[in-house]
């Protein structure tokens, strides 16, 4: 097991390094720079020059890259050009919104998606199965921001049960903060729950045909008992892979929902920071996102190996 974990961690580190390189040099290609943005309409060549040196924009690229990576290893992500505040602090504030949002959406999609998938598989071909599958089709097809709008209109504006958006920091009032995340996480969870339901149903239907289920029935179990004792665990393997991927998609995909519910998430931070050419902030936020996603994928792989002994020794793909 250790060799397996070691191999995957090495892959993880390689992906991160690749990401750091790509982010840094790709972002450098962007035309325009933070100095211009800060001075805006009143920019004059001398003022631009002064500001650029102040912000350290004119050092050669490779030097800045090494400085950036070395700083990151010590937890210092540099200071934001436009907001003149430590990038690490800014990102941490925003992560406190994006991660719980992604987490809540994940939990919701599991609590809704998996049971629906199991029910659909249990009554395969019956009415409940087809209706769940049609719902799942709809769930995947609805654009998330449109769905978010409908949710806000119903629950926030008309029924006044939930806030239409905005976010009160956890430190100030955790309950309000949580209430603020309910609608956005539902909007995010809908497509993911639909995918989960379909994958769970397919996995369970396929497992019915496996030989070891027939052996279990031969041992004296009914079909239902055989599936419950042997089938479900095997069916969870493909579901586990999808879960890992979905969490990754959720983390990077919250930007649109953050916009609809005006949540101060990491996605929107990156979006506005790029607009302001605040590249040191964009770099920091993006590498954190990449870190979060690759860490999720690493954990999924390890979890997969824990569940499936076949992966432990054989050199994993």
């Amino acid at each position, binding site marked *: 097991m250790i060799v397996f974990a070691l191999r995957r961690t090495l892959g993880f580190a390689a992906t991160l390094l690749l990401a750091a390189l790509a982010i840094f040099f790709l972002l450098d290609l962007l035309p325009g720079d933070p100095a211009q943005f800060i001075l805006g309409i009143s920019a004059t060549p001398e003022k631009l020059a002064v500001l650029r040196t102040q912000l350290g924009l004119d050092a050669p690229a490779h030097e800045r890259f090494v400085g950036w990576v070395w700083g990151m290893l010590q937890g210092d992500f540099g200071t934001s050009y436009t907001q003149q505040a430590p990038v690490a602090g800014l990102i941490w504030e925003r992560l406190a919104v994006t991660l719980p949002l992604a987490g809540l959406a994940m939990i919701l999609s599991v609590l809704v998606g998996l049971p629906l998938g199991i029910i659909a598989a249990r009554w395969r071909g019956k009415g409940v199965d087809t209706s769940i599958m049609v719902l799942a089709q709809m769930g995947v097809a609805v654009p998330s921001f449109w769905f978010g709008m409908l949710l806000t209109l119903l629950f926030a504006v008309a029924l*006044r049960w939930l806030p239409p958006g905005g976010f009160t920091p956890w430190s100030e009032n955790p309950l309000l903060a949580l209430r603020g995340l309910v609608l956005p996480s539902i909007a995010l969870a809908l497509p993911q729950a639909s995918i989960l339901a379909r994958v769970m149903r397919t996995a369970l239907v396929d497992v019915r045909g496996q030989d070891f289920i027939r052996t279990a029935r031969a041992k004296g179990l009914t079909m239902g008992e055989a599936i419950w004792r042997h089938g479900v665990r095997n069916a969870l393997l493909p579901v586990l892979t999808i879960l890992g991927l979905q969490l990754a998609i959720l983390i990077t995909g919250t930007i649109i929902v953050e916009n609809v519910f005006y949540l101060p998430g990491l996605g929107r*931070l990156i979006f506005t920071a790029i607009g302001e050419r605040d590249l040191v902030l964009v770099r920091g936020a993006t590498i954190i996102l990449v870190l979060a996603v690759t860490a999720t994928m690493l954990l999924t792989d390890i979890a997969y190996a824990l569940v499936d002994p076949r992966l432990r020794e054989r050199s994993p793909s």
Partner: protein
Amino acid sequence: MTNLMKSLGLALALAGAMAGTALAQPSEVRIGVALEPPILDPTAGAAEAIDIVVYQNIFEGLTRIDQNGEVQPGLAREWTISPDQLTYTFKLAEGVTFHDGTAFDAEDVKFTFERILAEDSVNAHKEFFTPITAMTVIDPLTVEMTLDHVVGRFLFDLGRGDAVIVAPESADNNANEPIGTGPFAFVQWNKGSRVVLEAYGPYWGEPVHLSKATYVFISDTSTMTNALLAGDVDGTNNFATEALGVFEGNPQYQILVGTTEGETILGTNNRKPPFDNLKVRQAMAHALDRQAIIDGATYGYGTPIGAPFAPHNPYYVDLTGTYPHDVEKAKALLAEAGFPDGFSATLKLPPVAYARLSGQIIASQFAEVGIKLELINMEFAQWLDEVYTNNDFDLTIISHVEPFDIGNYANPDYYFGYDNPQFQALITELNGTTDEARRKELAVEAQTILANDAVNGYLFELAQTGVWNAKLTGMWQNSPIEGLVLRDIRWTE
């Protein structure tokens, strides 16, 4: 069909608003604004969003601009100007303290202006204050400034956000923890979400009515609509015109329509052919149908302008008649200029709703006279880089929101590149005189030259369409200066 929908909107709003007001304490207000400021120090950044939060709320200048654009006494209670109009002596208010308790006196004023004029200063309008050659502290409550030449609008410029008085002890971290002398003190800033201010107890001036004010940052129009309807936000100073219909005729809300200093123009690159040819510019002016653009882009809110000057300004003269909408005349002029079957050009648009919408409308209007426009939408930083700094553009649409910025046309390096010595001389004379009658005469002459030269396509003055809770009063109808002054705002019930 639509009135059914409107009543639905109404019903929703009614349900929303009733419950909404009960929650908010009478002395608190939550204001929705579209853009979040990058920093909170108005002396170190040009963005309008900074002044919206801090100007005359947290920070104050020597003078103060009121809602009609007039100069009023600020921290300087009164002042005397020397006969040669080169020396200003200011008597400062007594018992004024900064929010961190430190005292305010002439030294702070001297420090503020030295900081603006310093070598590494990043002040957005340093050039307005370069004429100051000497600052002398006569006593803790009197300070004297001498200029090297007469500046007609000096007192107005002292009232801008860029010239607010800061203390040496707190100046450096005003970006994130602003310390000023204003009626409201800074509480906290949750980046990406909101800024909270509260009334500053020991404020030297008249006390304000509000105990707490929160700015909530919502960039998306539909989300702002929901926030207003749900009572999550009590009002906004500038709401997107296309969605105003939701609040029209709704007793829970009031719509404040006013003017701004935003002259919206079709920026034309005068250096680049064919735009260096006057006939071509005249043809384009004739091709523009201003009223159709206003109806389409801002749903009828906004006043047509014939020259780059704000209609609410006393010096304004209506020159919209110079080149009336006339397709045939436009075609004729194009033919005379050597473009019988028109030409094609690019129209680079910054990411603001009025620009994107009017861009499309102008493209279809120009198409009628044979000018084929290719629309290129770009981000603000990219617009600044390509259009504003490198002048790599044919046409663009932008609104100049700074007060009295007709002087830009006297700067040949400005992005649209207009170089008319006669006009430049006129502007220098205008800046040099303080006599009202003479200034008005010169201003009118300046506007006429620009109108006739059709330097740019003058479209309309951006209107300010605020949507507020009906029970709120004291909000400024117009915005003659960048900012959202909270001083007079209070709940009526």
